[in-house]
Every structure is written in C-alpha cells, then in structure tokens.
C-alpha cells in the first residue's frame, strides 16, 4: 500500500471516529479490560493497553486513529500487565466467531490473484502465477452468498444458546464482524466463570462432537417414536431430524444399521453450529471492538438486533464512509456489490468511486488512492 493510500485511509477513519466516537462503548468495567490495536500497516499488534475511563479511550482513538481496535473478552485485575498470568483473570464473556470462509467456499468471480513477483494479476482463484509460476496472493472479496450461509449459522447458534443454554436475549449481542463473519458475545453472570475446560464442553456440544451415537442408533433401530423417548437437547434435535428425514419409524426399523448410521452422521453435519472452536476456548482472546472499523474491508463491526437478524444486509448496513467521489487507480477488481450499488469489474484503470467503495478497494489491496 502506498503512503498516499494509507493517508487517505487514516483521513477517512478519522472522519468516521470523529463523528461516531460515542458509539464506541467497551463492555463495563472498562478498567478491567485489556485493549489491543493495529496502529500501522504491517506492524505487530500494540496490546496490553488499558484505560481508566471511556474518555481516555476515546481520546486515544482520536489521537492515534488505529487501523483496528480490540478489547479483551476477559476482565482482569491488572489488564496492562504484559505477563498473561500476572494479569490475573477474573472472568470472561463467552465469545463465538462464525467465519464465513469456513462455512462456505468463495466463488471464482469474487476473488482475484496477484503475483507480487512479476506483477501480474487477474480475476479468479489461482495458486500459482501463470507466467512465472510463483505462488500468488489471493484476495477474496466479501461475498454476500458466503455471508448468508454464515448468518444462517449464527441464527442456529442463537437458537441453541437460547433454547439449550438458557441465555437470555438481553445477555447476547450479535455482530457482523465487518469482513467475513459474525460474532456473538454472551455476557451472562453465571457463564462468566466457566473455565477453559468447560468452554471446551460447550464447543463440543455446539459442534456435536463426542456424541454417543450408539444410544440414538438403538432407539432408532427399535423404532421408538419421539414421544417414546425422553431425549432433550441436541440428542433430541438429532433424533427428530432423523425421523423427519426417514419419513416413518417403520422405514428405519427395516433399514440396515450402517444406513441409519450414515444418515445420523449426515444429520450431525447438518445440525452442528460451525463456530471457530479456538476463539471460544481462549479466555484471553481479544475481540474486535464493536462499532470499530475492520481494516480488512473498511466496514464496521456492526451490532445487529436479534429481531433484525433475518433481514440483515451486511454490505449495506455496515458501511462507515460517505459517498464523495474518490479517484482510484485500480489494479484488478472483480464485480462487487456494496452500499446497494454494483461496481466493476475493473482492470488497470483509473476510476471514480464513492468513498466507501474506494476505502474497500484500498483495504483489499486491489488499488491505490489517486486523489479526489
């Protein structure tokens, strides 16, 4: 990224934070949280930072204009201590991450490849450069289709958290990550102290790992209807789905054991909530700060009210910047939708785009700022 592009981003980010600083409210108590920032492109994370007040936090952001802002899921006695064990963990929110990338594949027409060695590029997914053979850098745009699948997973997660785990809706906050995923933060008193081991159990529950299939199989093979078994939780959900899919209890009774087992496995795949396990286990994890800009896309980590979830449109509702025309030199860009409009495809051209789309292209590394 050229210096002029970086300055352009910093100007735009400043405008966003200047206008929206009051939306950036870290979870209380702010004094017990650790903060982390990416301040410069390509530099490591500046972490172990803490703030005494909301005002200090806001001042820091407006002075530094970080590229990315993070806050710990955990409360600590001494959040700025550089030694993780010396921070003295008090408790931690449950934090779930659903990554669109791992729930659905990105399509060719939403990706581009760039060869840094011989400066070739094109649309599509290519691992090796066609002219020099060097490994390429792949740029995947934010895909509406992928995000839709991830949103369905998020709804599944919320359903299980409510129905099975008894998490009250007011203790659950759902976010679009600003790039390729969704986050769910759970801040419910009795779950704050669940240890890493306990969190692993919650993950296994959501991913349906370690399920005792024999018991279910025996029920199924004996032809017990759902009214006849006292199943609850995920087992019940699996059982009901098998019965539904098979059509009738009788059919199952006459099917081969392997056939039923296969069906069971298929249904586990269908019903599991595809969260990223690593994120939830790690109590020291830093979470992207709500309402802050995600510098991989220039969109905002946006809170979504539960009732708005089914109709949420990430590529329209998470836009952070205005639509002033901005001049860009675009290397390569597949056709993309953003802010309700469609742009591109572009190749080696100078184009005028609204600021939000220009930021997006620059953040994705597909073009450079060329003046307003």
């Amino acid at each position: 990224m050229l210096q002029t592009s970086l300055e352009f981003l910093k100007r735009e980010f400043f405008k966003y934070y200047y206008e929206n600083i009051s939306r950036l409210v870290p979870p209380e108590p702010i004094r017990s949280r650790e903060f982390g920032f990416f301040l410069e492109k390509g530099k490591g994370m500046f972490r172990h930072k803490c703030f005494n007040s909301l005002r200090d936090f806001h001042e820091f952001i407006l002075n530094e204009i970080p590229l990315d802002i993070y806050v710990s899921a955990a409360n600590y006695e001494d959040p700025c201590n550089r030694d993780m064990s010396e921070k003295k963990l008090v408790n931690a929110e449950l934090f779930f991450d659903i990554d669109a990338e791992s729930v659905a594949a990105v399509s060719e027409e939403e990706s581009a490849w760039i060869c840094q060695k011989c400066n070739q590029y094109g649309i599509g997914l290519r691992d090796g450069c066609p002219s020099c053979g060097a490994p390429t850098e792949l740029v995947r745009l934010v895909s509406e289709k992928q995000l839709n699948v991830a949103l369905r997973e998020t709804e599944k997660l919320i359903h299980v958290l409510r129905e099975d785990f008894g998490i009250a809706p007011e203790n659950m906050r759902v976010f679009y990550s600003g790039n390729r995923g969704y986050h769910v933060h759970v801040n419910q008193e009795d779950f704050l102290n669940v240890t890493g081991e306990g969190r692993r159990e919650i993950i296994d529950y959501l991913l349906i790992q370690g399920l005792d299939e024999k018991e279910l199989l025996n029920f199924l093979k004996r032809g017990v209807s759902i009214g006849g078994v006292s199943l609850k939780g995920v087992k019940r959900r699996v059982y009901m789905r098998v019965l539904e899919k098979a059509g009738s209890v009788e059919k199952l009774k006459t099917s081969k054991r392997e056939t039923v087992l296969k069906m069971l496995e298929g249904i586990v795949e269908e019903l599991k909530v595809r969260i990223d396990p690593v994120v939830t286990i790690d109590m020291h994890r830093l979470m992207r700060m709500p309402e802050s800009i995600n510098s991989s896309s220039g969109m905002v980590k946006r809170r979504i009210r539960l009732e708005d979830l089914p109709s949420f449109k990430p590529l329209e509702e998470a836009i952070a910047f205005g639509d002033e025309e901005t001049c860009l030199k675009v290397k390569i860009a597949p056709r993309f939708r953003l802010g309700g409009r469609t742009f591109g495809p572009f190749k080696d051209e100078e184009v005028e785009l609204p600021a939000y789309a220009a930021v997006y292209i620059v953040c994705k590394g597909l073009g450079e700022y060329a003046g307003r």
Partner: protein
Amino acid sequence: MMSENVLRAARYPFLPETREFISRNIDLSLESLEKTGSEAALKRAVERVKNALIFKEVKVTALDELNYVREMLSFPIAIILVSMIMNEYVRRMYALGESRGAYRRMLNESDETLLYIGEKMGVGGVLDDENTIRVKIPTYLKLAYSFHAPHWKLVNRAVNNGYVSMGKTEYARLIQVEVNNYVYEKTLEPVPAGAVPDSFRRAADEIVGVWSRLETGKASRVPLREREDTPPCIGRIIRRMENGENASHFERLVVATFMIARSRNIDEIIEFFSKQPDYKYSVTKYQVEHLAGIRGGGKKYSVPSCRTMLTNGLCYPDEYCKGIKHPLRYGEKNVADEPRVP
C-alpha cells in the same frame, strides 16, 4: 433436642450448619472440651483419616451419629491433623475418603435431604418430575469435567433451558466432587504451629505411622525438605564454567535461566559469566536480561526440563533426581527405596 437436623449435621459434617452447631453449643475452651469429650473426638478424627487412607472411604455408623457432638467435632480436628502432616498424598486421600463416604450416605437420603445438601454445597438442584434433578449448566461444567466417561459429556446430556438433567445417583456424584474440593481446600489452610496441643501432634504421628506402613516399598511423595541445592546437571556446568571452560550456548542458557529462577540478581549473573573466555559485558547483559524477561517480548524463559537436558546429553542424575521431571524440582521427592520402619 436430638432432631433429624442434628443427625444430619453429624452425618455430613462439612455442612455449614455443623460449624454453626459447634459454635453455638460447644464451649471450645480446653477444659470444657475435656468434659464434652475432646479426647473421644480426637480419637474419632484419627479414625476418619485412617479410614480414608486404608479404605479410601470415611464410614459413619448409626452409633457415630448418635455420638453427634463427638462426630461433629472430629471433622474439623481431622482437617487440622491432615494440614499438620503437610503431605499432598494424605490431603488428597483424606478429601477422597470423606467425599466418597458422603456419596454413599447420600444415596440413601430422601430427595429433599439430597437437594438440601446440594444447595448448601453450592450444587443447587431442582427436582423435576420423573425422578430427575436438574442442575445449572455452569455448575455442571465446573464439576463434571473431571469425569472422562462419554456419558458425562455435555453433548450426551439432557440439556434444556440452561439446565442439565440427571438421576439422583449422578447428582450425588456431582456433590461428591464439590465435597472433595471443599475438604481438600480446607486441608491446605496452614495450622499455627504454637497453637497445636501435644495430643494433636501424637495423633498426627499415629496417622503418619499408618501411612508409612501402607507406603512401604512404594515411591514416597513426601518432600524431604526445602532444598536450595543445585541439581547435579546444572552444578556440573557451573563447576566447569568456574574453571574457565568454554560452555556451549545451550549450557549458558541453562545456567542463566536457573540463576534467574533462584532469584539471583542480574549483576551477579553477569559477574559469573565474566569468567568465560569470550566474555563481553554488553552482550552478556543483553542476553541475560532477555532471558529474565526484562527485554524483548517480556517473556521470562524457564529452565529446560529434564527431558531436554537428557536430549542435549547434559543429564547426570543422582538419587534426589528420582521421580522429578524438572531440574527446579530437584530434591522435592524422597529417595524411594529406603524401607520404612513404622
């Protein structure tokens, strides 16, 4: 005056009401303890610990319950005795014995009593129809993660609306874990040395006697003493370096991290390295500070494990190395083969 509640307090002496009963009704001054039979309580306390060590279960008979004052008093005394012995194995076995005994007794209790004990131990349960009890998920996770059988896994449980349902036996099992944790933690509290009467010392000796008889021939777990000694592997490198021999990079790392771990100050450590033929003050200072976590990422480096020392051909064990996995643990475990005379 001998109500059901008093019997219950005697049967489950870890319940808070036992403490209340003792402080309300029993004069804890020594002469009155004589009268209320503190000697009998002490005897019963020894029996509790012996039961735990020999049978892995503290048994409480109906007769014990009728002697409820003695029974109630014997529990805190047993804890004092176990704390005095300061042995991890005895602590764990005692906690296990008490909790196991409690578990057996709980199986015969009414739903009401079982739920009452659970509630008091922080394992609150709600009685549902069909003879099932439900427990809040976080409570369940805290206690059940130590069980490895697949049916304890959350994914295999009846989970609904924030609760895990289970039968009475399983519920009692969860309470057992909490009783175990409670007793174990109690035995970690230090006993003020001056306050212990001689009779307690003799009682503790008696328990140690039983324990040694059981342990004869087995590797012992008792810490010999707080040794400040240097393990032979590291001592060997230090001696060589003192003679001006040129140590390898890894050997220097071992010595430096060891000295840091033993809280030597940085200047002292640098002074030590100054005998090395290729000594440079600035380089040594930089590296030692780096290892101590003063520089760089702030990460303090630890002393390499026995395994790593062995891999690098630097392990020269002596008898105090038996059973340890890390040079800093040197001398913490006793020589195994020495037979014990009770």
